[in-house]
């Protein structure tokens, strides 16, 4: 087993792990504010990729215009979905919200299928397809974009929650709805913004992975599933957990495929997940929940 192969596997794991992390980020933002599992996350990832690819195909706009436009559209879709179906819930329990997001997921998938078609679509790489050789392993330039944009997004979201008034209000509402409402925070609106962030970051993940993998209307379920697993690995509700969980899941899959069996690579990741749940239920970086009675 030589070093270049290990490096190659690590590159592969980090790239897919970055995507998982970005999807997990959306899960965690919504989980933090509603305690619900957002089944729509994967569909937003898919919708982002599909929309960007469609705009590219129809208008051939440059990426600097196309990417923000597609992210903005899907973020808007997240906002509209929340206002139309989560906000009117008479009893917004985590269970009810979770179930409604299954409905939104199916609707989103259907809308993409009906408007953008059933064909797989692709995007050109952001900066050429020429591989870069590092230490005997090759790396596509798109991989650097993926890792870079992941880190930039993580930093941006972190700063948003720490430095802006809206971000702080959202943190407060997530920590204690009633107390936040008492000091004048519109809690329902913070939930709406969480959906906007989740949809926007999800769409970005979908766009940056499309040049490497293609995308189609059916791709959302698997991406959502992987993202949710990453969120669980890292600890639900934690931003750094999303990053750690995503990268861990990506690396696990990559190395398990090489050293154990490519057939069982998905199972390996989930066995690790179960073991983690059994022995450290709050996730790698999550904090244990303390139950007050």
């Amino acid at each position, binding site marked *: 087993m030589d070093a270049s192969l290990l490096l190659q596997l690590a590159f592969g794991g980090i790239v897919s792990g970055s995507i998982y992390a970005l999807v997990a980020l959306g899960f965690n933002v919504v989980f933090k504010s509603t*305690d*619900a*599992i957002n*089944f729509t996350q994967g569909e937003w990832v898919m919708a982002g990729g599909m929309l960007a690819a469609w705009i590219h195909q129809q208008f051939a706009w440059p990426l600097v215009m196309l990417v923000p436009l597609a992210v903005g559209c899907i973020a808007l879709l997240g906002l509209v979905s929340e206002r*139309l*179906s989560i906000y*009117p*819930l*008479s*009893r917004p*329990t*985590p*269970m*009810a919200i*979770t*179930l*409604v997001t*299954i*409905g*939104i*997921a*199916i*609707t*989103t*998938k*259907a*809308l993409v*299928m*009906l408007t953008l078609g059933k064909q797989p679509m692709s995007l050109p790489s952001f900066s050429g397809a020429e591989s870069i050789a590092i230490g005997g392993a090759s790396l596509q330039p798109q991989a650097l974009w993926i890792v870079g944009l992941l880190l930039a997004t993580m930093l941006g979201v972190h700063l948003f929650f720490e430095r802006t008034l809206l971000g702080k209000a959202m943190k407060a509402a997530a920590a204690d709805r009633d107390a936040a409402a008492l000091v004048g925070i519109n809690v329902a609106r913070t939930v709406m913004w969480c959906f906007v962030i989740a949809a926007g970051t999800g769409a970005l993940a979908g766009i940056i992975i499309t040049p490497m993998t293609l995308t189609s209307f059916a791709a959302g*379920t698997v991406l959502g*599933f992987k993202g*949710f*697993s990453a969120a*669980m690995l890292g600890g*639900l509700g934690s931003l750094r957990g999303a990053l750690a969980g995503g990268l861990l899941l990506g690396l696990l899959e990559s190395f398990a495929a090489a050293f154990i069996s490519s*057939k*069982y690579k*998905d*199972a390996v990741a*989930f*066995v690790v*997940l*179960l073991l983690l*749940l*059994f022995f450290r*239920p709050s996730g790698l970086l999550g904090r244990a*929940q303390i*139950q007050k*009675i």
Partner: protein
Amino acid sequence: MHAQISATTYRALGILWVLLAALPWIAPNNYWLNLGTLWLTNLLLIASLNLLMGYSGQISLAHGAFYGIGAYVSGVLGAKYGVSPWIGLPVALVATGVVAFAVGWPTLRLRGHYLAMATLGFNAIASVLFVELRDWTGGPNGLVNIPPYTLFGVKLDSDRSFYFLALIAVGIALVLLLNLLDSRTGRALRALSTAEVGAQCMGVDVHRYKILVFVVSAMFAALAGCLYAHHNAFVSPESFDFMVSTMLVVMVALGGTGHWWGAFLGALIYTVLPEVLRSFGDLELLIFGVSLILVLLFFPRGMGGALDLLCAKIAGLRSRGPGAKPPSADARGAGADS
């Protein structure tokens, strides 16, 4: 479901079963009979998941996997080793029960989303195994040549004979379920579904009962799997994947979480909806998604809850009819600890 298990429930179930027994003579053709069989299997799946969701307030995203383990264990024993399906059945039930116990034991100690997460991971593992244990399961193409049930040398493979077999099997299972709810165990379950901490203080071993419910519900799913495998003579992995488990959870909610008759309605929707939507072609998915959202918005207690309200209205009842019962387990959700 709470406090409603009475002689009336048994009687209503009996009447329903007598009516259902007449279906083969009423149904214009075997298509309707097969829908009836499908409904019975789905009912078993949804009623058992409803038991778990209604009483422990937890979501299991592995009901499809338990259904699949039942189907594959009994199916593989029959197809590859020539074991009688009547022997395969108890083997499949015990195997599923043991697996469910192993998944439930560590996770049901914890409150919150842990069961949902563990079962989701478990379903993913089971799906991989159904595909990759090729020598037994036949891989992605599925397992073929599963023998039918036989009785006194007669093969129960006609649509009509299997319908009766399913009717009897599901009927027995539902009576067992009712008995369970009507017993000391049922009272403990009812206590823990309304006030978990309170029940604990009164000496109810909450962890033990939650595991019991989880294991029992998984074994009922396995029974449904056995019936499915030996009726269909063929099983393939996608019948038991994560999406199936998710849809089962959705159907429990649509029927009404914790509502005894809700499961019957949920099973009806799950069985009939694909048949109805098929004529809409590509619009199928959109109609399903939108109607799911609408039902959840306008009938938060599902069709069962809506039915209660309707009954209460029709009877012009006292203000505390069955529709006005206090918010039950469905209000508590999976994140009851938040």
